[in-house]
């Protein structure tokens, strides 16, 4: 009996499989639960009228979120892609680069409420934007910047070195190589990162709490970048905490709308990434 | 653990073995043919004629082996020279076999007649020529350039022996015309032996090429030196 294994290979295989499957299910469960609860409680309230009504409905919030997201992207995307290009194509290993990467990681780790406070101090007060679309977008841009940089850099690194070599060997400069070969081939990956960033920006509450969001019945839509704006997460927060006598249905419907928006963006990004991976040829 | 290309090295060794076997066989043919002539032994002469088939077969087999190695092994540098040399050497050895047959045929023709003198010089020449052939093949096996030089020197001695026999028989034929048919036959045999010696020098030249990578006409260059030497003495050098 000495030397015999405790479990036969067949049994240990089945046990491992069961364990791993269970872990996967445990991870899935919360997501399913959240969506299920939202749907159960909010589906009834999510009528077309609710979505499109200007007062008492979601349209201003949706419009506000859209504005925020567009502006955030306009700020974060160029900066993020440029930083990624620098890190991937131009930088040489050394102290400076290590510090930059450390900064990016730390930026990503900052809690979103801290982002909000920082945005309040810098954009709203110091730079004098006031509570505005602009201040909110800048704050959100800082929030999603690490995500943009990381996703873009990964996309750039995916481009095989032999393509760069081919361009360089023909007498191309580094920038020409980046512009004509690397960037176009990394674009799908970069766009995927962009969509993920957008999804993230759309769902954040704390950063816009101090910098942009306002609930105003007189001016539901922003007229300029310096206007305050209503956003879905803020709408939900206000409905849940400050306004009395809001029907429960409305609250859950708002929550469901928000969850659908965020999950929707993520789903699009995932599908896009999968299709691009399958289609990639080089 | 086998060395790289050990299989190829073994094939090259095998090739060399077969070459040595063929050369020893032909050397024996020559020795038998001369003995048959000296002892007027018709049966021995017939045996030499039969041997020629075997010699030709060996020639063909070795050549095919060489071609196969060229095709399959992509030999370079000295491997290539070894194979090329072997192919040329078997041609020379095969010709030596043919000359042995010529000697044997002469022996058959003269077997019944009485010699006007006992054969002394021709066997001596044959012995020297046999040594030359042995030396040339030993030079190949042992990469011995000194032996190559010896073969070239021995060739000069064979040439001298040939001229001496020519002078001697010229004189004797003038004195007694009745011996002319036999004398001519003996002269031809001596000529065959001299040609065999030339072929062994060819073999020696091939060995030198195999070792050094340079093709040189050793006999001719040596003959030039010989001519210069002779110019210093009384006798004018004879044209070969």
């Amino acid at each position, binding site marked *: 009996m000495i030397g015999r294994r405790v479990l036969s290979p067949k049994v240990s295989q089945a046990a491992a499989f069961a364990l791993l499957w269970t872990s996967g299910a445990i991870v899935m469960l919360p997501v399913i639960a959240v969506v299920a609860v939202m749907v159960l409680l909010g589906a009834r309230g999510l009528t077309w009228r609710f979505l499109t009504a200007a007062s008492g409905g979601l349209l201003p919030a949706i419009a506000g979120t859209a504005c925020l997201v567009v502006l955030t992207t306009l700020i974060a995307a160029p900066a993020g892609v440029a930083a990624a290009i620098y890190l991937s194509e131009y930088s040489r290993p050394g102290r400076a680069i290590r510090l930059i990467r450390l900064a990016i990681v730390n930026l990503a780790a900052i809690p979103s409420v801290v982002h909000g406070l920082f945005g309040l101090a810098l954009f709203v007060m110091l730079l004098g934007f006031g509570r505005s679309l602009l201040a909110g977008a800048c704050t959100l841009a800082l929030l999603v910047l690490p995500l943009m940089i990381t996703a873009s850099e990964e996309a750039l690194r995916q481009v095989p070195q*032999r*393509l760069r*070599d081919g361009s360089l*060997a023909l007498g*191309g400069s580094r920038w020409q190589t980046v512009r004509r070969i690397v960037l176009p081939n990394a674009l799908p990956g970069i766009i995927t990162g962009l969509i993920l960033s957008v999804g993230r920006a759309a769902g954040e509450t704390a950063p816009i709490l101090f910098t942009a969001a306002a609930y105003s019945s007189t001016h539901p839509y922003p007229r300029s970048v310096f206007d305050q704006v209503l956003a879905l997460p803020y709408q939900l927060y206000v409905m849940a905490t400050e306004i009395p006598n809001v029907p429960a249905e409305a609250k859950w419907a708002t929550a469901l709308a928000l969850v659908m928006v965020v999950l929707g963006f993520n789903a699009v990004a995932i599908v896009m990434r999968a299709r691009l991976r399958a289609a990639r040829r080089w | 653990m086998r060395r790289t290309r050990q299989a190829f090295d073994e094939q090259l060794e095998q090739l060399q073995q077969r070459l040595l076997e063929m050369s020893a066989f032909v050397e024996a043919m020559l020795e038998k043919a001369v003995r048959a002539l000296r002892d007027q032994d018709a049966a021995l002469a017939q045996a030499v004629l039969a041997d020629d088939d075997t010699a030709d077969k060996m020639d063909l087999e070795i050549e095919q082996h060489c071609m196969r190695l060229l095709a399959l092994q992509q030999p370079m540098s000295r491997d290539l020279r070894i194979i090329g040399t072997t192919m040329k050497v078997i041609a020379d050895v095969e010709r030596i076999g043919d000359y042995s047959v010529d000697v044997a045929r002469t022996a058959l023709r003269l077997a019944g007649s009485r010699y006007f003198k006992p054969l002394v010089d021709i066997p001596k020449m044959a012995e020297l020529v046999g040594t030359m052939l042995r030396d040339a093949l030993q030079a190949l096996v042992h990469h011995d350039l000194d032996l190559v030089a010896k073969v070239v020197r021995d060739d000069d001695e064979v040439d001298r022996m040939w001229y001496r026999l020519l002078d001697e028989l010229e004189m004797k034929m003038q004195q007694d015309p009745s011996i002319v048919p036999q004398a001519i036959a003996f002269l031809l045999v001596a000529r065959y032996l001299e040609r065999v010696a030339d072929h062994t020098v060819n073999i020696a030249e091939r060995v030198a090429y195999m070792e050094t990578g340079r093709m040189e006409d050793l006999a001719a260059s040596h003959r030039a030196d010989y001519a210069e030497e002779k110019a210093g003495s009384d006798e004018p050098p004879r044209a070969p």
Partner: protein
Amino acid sequence: MNAVQGEASQLIVRPQGSIKFETQRLNMFYGAFQALTDVSVAIPERHITALIGPSGCGKSSFLRCLDRMNDVIQGVRIEGKVLLEEDDIYAAGTDVVQLRKRVGMVFQTPNPFPMSIYDNVAYGPRLHGAPDRTGLDQIVESSLRQAALWDEVKDKLRQSALDLSGGQQQRLCIARVLAVEPEVVLMDEPCTALDPTATFRIEELMLELRQRYTIVIVTHNMYQASRVSQYTGFFLLGELIEFGLTARIFESPQDRRTDDYVRGRFG
């Protein structure tokens, strides 16, 4: 057999005729590791020069010194001179872009860009300021003809280059290099990834091209070197052991190590 003493026993031969590249005591380091030691050699113009040697001997590193593609790798250091005709290409102020236009490179694995065949060949000329459409068409056709690929692709120039077979892709890469009208074409094991038929076609192409271009090819297949090149250099552990006429290197090499290598008695 030891090195033969005598008139022709020089190990590194300087070719007759005009010299395209000359290195003088070239040393190359990857960080602390020395990849090339004191390599001094002259590469003849409009000939095919092959560089052979076992893996890791430095032949590819040497090749990449000739168009400064080693600059792309971190931590590379060069000592000594590399002269393209009269100019040291490592001198300060050298225009590397111009250098790489004059000295093209074909890589081991064919690396066509993920674009059409036409755009691949037109890439180089467009980099350097392409002529108008007609001019570009002419350049593309001429380059594809020179690379013996025109007849096979003339009807599908707009199709993706990635649809071509391996051998065709490699000829496309050659056409791409030729489109910038270089003087030298460097080839780093160009046939390693190809089947024998494709290999022989490219070898035939090399023999045609050498009338107009100087070609330097690194190959670990010494039989290929013996087939196509006029001059051969044997590298071992970062040193150039022997350099001379290909016929000489393969028929009767001077150095024992070269002899062992060409006879396959290495290791």
